[in-house]
């Protein structure tokens, strides 16, 4: 086999070309990885949002919390059902929640819909790892709210002490910033259920009821009871399944990411091929010499393919590395599924690594294949005569 150092040193000797190719491919790989990092972040937040023992109860036929409202009286009945887990103080781990979608103004003057979630005390325990990280929790009935970090940063009046103003009747004083284990709740504004009822004039209705069952058999029993009740006209969905269904935004990001990745891979492939063709043509005589010395065609093929791989792997690795600082990146955008703001945190995980890897392999293989084949097909005698 032709030693790898032959390729490494050639890349080093042509360092300007190598560097340009690496930087070019790195940027392209990083671009695709950013979107897939967001996909991964979104999927993660949906995954941690659903506890296996949690049920979410919506009006039958509605597909989303924001679209599924029903009467408080039914909701109150739900809270008394047997089989609901209880906290140490004996209160049921279940909460009525009321969502309102209000058009908020960002600090930069643009607008987006925000989900205002009116919650009950148990709502906090129903979210993974709910924590107040700054300020304090809101006090019921005082028109206060807590927000996630990104909402606090992006929206006018979202800072602690600020006023989130949606209209004369709907405004909330921000008193704290919360996290919820990276779950979907981190896209929302949380306020007291009764405050939201009052402000939106919707007392007597809830958007959903969240329930944690005491055990798996209880979970199944609860779900059956609620779904089979003809009076209720409600549907208890597994929270896990519910959040999996909420991935419309994820589909969009995935489609965009895939499109970008595929097109950019082709772009990078051609760039790599350009570099490798130049490498082959400037080393024609060397190739002839190696062949004369007795290196078989397969060795030449492997050597040049290897060089192409090496080149692309360096680009891919650099591109991947470039996304590392993005681990702190959270973007705030519009979710077509809920018609409201959603925060997505970049998450570096297997998908991102796999995308970078697949891109690199595709670039290295297809970018290197034709130049390498050209190297293989060179006539030894003609190649030796080349200047």
């Amino acid at each position, binding site marked *: 086999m032709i030693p790898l150092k032959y390729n490494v040193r050639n890349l080093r000797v042509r360092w300007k070309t190598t560097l340009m190719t690496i930087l070019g491919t790195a940027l392209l790989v990083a671009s695709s990885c950013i979107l897939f990092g967001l996909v991964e972040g979104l999927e993660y937040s949906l995954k941690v949002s659903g506890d296996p023992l949690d049920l979410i109860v919506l009006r039958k036929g509605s597909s989303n919390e924001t*679209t599924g409202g029903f*009467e408080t009286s039914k909701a109150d009945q739900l809270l008394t059902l047997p089989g609901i887990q209880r906290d140490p103080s004996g209160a049921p781990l279940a909460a009525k929640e009321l969502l309102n979608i209000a*058009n908020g103004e960002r600090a930069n003057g643009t607008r*987006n819909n925000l989900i205002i979630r009116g919650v009950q005390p148990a709502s906090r325990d129903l979210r993974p790892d709910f924590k107040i990280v700054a300020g304090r929790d809101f006090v019921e009935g005082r028109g206060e709210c807590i927000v996630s970090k990104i909402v606090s940063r992006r929206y006018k009046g979202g800072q602690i002490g600020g006023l989130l103003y949606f209209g004369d009747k709907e405004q909330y004083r921000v008193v704290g910033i919360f996290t919820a284990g990276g779950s979907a709740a981190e896209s929302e504004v949380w306020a007291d259920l009764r405050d939201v009822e009052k402000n939106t004039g919707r007392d007597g209705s809830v*958007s959903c009821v969240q329930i944690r069952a005491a055990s798996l058999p209880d979970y199944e029993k609860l779900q059956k009871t609620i779904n089979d009740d003809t009076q209720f006209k409600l549907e208890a969905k597994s929270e896990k399944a519910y959040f999996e269904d909420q991935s*419309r935004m994820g589909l969009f990001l995935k489609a965009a990411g895939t499109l970008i990745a595929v097109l950019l891979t082709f772009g990078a492939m051609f*760039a790599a091929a350009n570099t490798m063709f*130049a490498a082959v043509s400037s080393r024609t005589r060397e190739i002839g010499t190696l062949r004369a010395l007795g290196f078989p065609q397969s060795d030449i093929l492997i050597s040049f393919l290897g060089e192409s791989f090496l080149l692309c792997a360096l680009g891919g690795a650099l591109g991947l590395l470039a996304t590392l600082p993005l681990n702190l990146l959270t973007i705030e955008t519009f979710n077509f599924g809920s018609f409201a703001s959603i925060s997505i945190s970049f998450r570096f995980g297997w998908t991102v690594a796999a995308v970078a890897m697949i891109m690199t392999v595709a670039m290295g293989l297809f970018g290197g294949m034709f130049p390498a084949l050209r190297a293989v097909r060179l006539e030894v005698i003609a190649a030796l005569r080349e200047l």
Partner: protein
Amino acid sequence: MKYFTYIFRNARRNPIRTFLTIASTGICLFLMMILLAFFDMREDATKANRVFNRIITMNATGFAGMVPIGRVPEVSRMEGVLAASPYGWFGGKYHDETMPFAQFSVDADSVFKILNEFRVPDSQLADFKANKDGAAIGRRLASDRGLKIGDPLPLKGDLYPVDMDLTVRAIYDGPSNRNLRMCLFHYEYLDEALKKVTMSSAYGGSLATDSARTSGNAGMIFIKCKNADVMPSLSKKIDDLYRNSEFPTRTQTEEAFGKMFSDMLGDLQNAIYGIGAAVVVSLLFVAGNAMAIAMRERTSEVAILKAIGFSKGRVLFLVLTEAILVAGLGGALGSLGCKALCDVVDVAKYSAGFLPVFYVPWRIALLGLVVSLFVGFASGVVPALLAANSSVINGLRKVV
């Protein structure tokens, strides 16, 4: 141009490299077109519709808020208003498909006076107006779903606790950059169904908060004005009129309304623009690299040119022109090709209802072309300068 032959031959001397450079530039710009068009298209479409002089009134707190139906006649009586119609988002399911296409409850009599770029055969329009359960759907929606006049179009309520069993009565057509995938149906049909739901406040989700409570919610009001001049004053007049009511409004032009949707994407828009910028920078490296390789292979030739009396400036010009030619060709293929493709193929059809219409606006396509010319220029500068300043003696030595 007397040097053109020489430049062109040079670009063709290594056809594979030139092809690869053109291809990578083309592909990257193709992608850029799609990314940019995604955001710009809506604005462009509404901007193009400026001539239609339309404004939209919604509840000041957002789409979820109430706009009482009684305001539609109030507004339509205002000075400068040609027609006004309720415009309520229904968001129903079609065969269990969530949000398959846009559905609006409208005033059948006035809606096509407002959306007057759409053409509907007279008999169909009359049919649509005459039948309360009638629906007017776009040509593309009809062809996507294989719907004909007279076909049932059942929509299951998602936001609303009522189902709409519609029948296709009219199929509208219009310019290809407009949404030809909408379903418009009678406001009264929805409102009556809502009144029948023996239910108070509770039914209906947040997006339909108030409508469900009282029915009588127009959702939004789509207003056609006499001319562009009255639009600002009219918007102000409407908002002022309702400022101190229970439901204050926000009225804006159709253009601003479209922009509001793009703006909602917020950071995602920036992320996509960032990616677009990264692609351009990457192209600089790729094209610059190709040009540098080309020049390295031609060292001796440049030396000969200079030996026979070509000035530095002329050499610079030759190399730069070649770089711009190659990148520009890629850019033209990528950006204009993308535009042509989207014009010929109805890309939106494959977005599963996500995009009602997709096309590349001219300004985006031209921007792509300009970007590629810039890439050509920037990628050619360094190799061109090196070639222009190369030593004749060293270059010639390589020849022999």
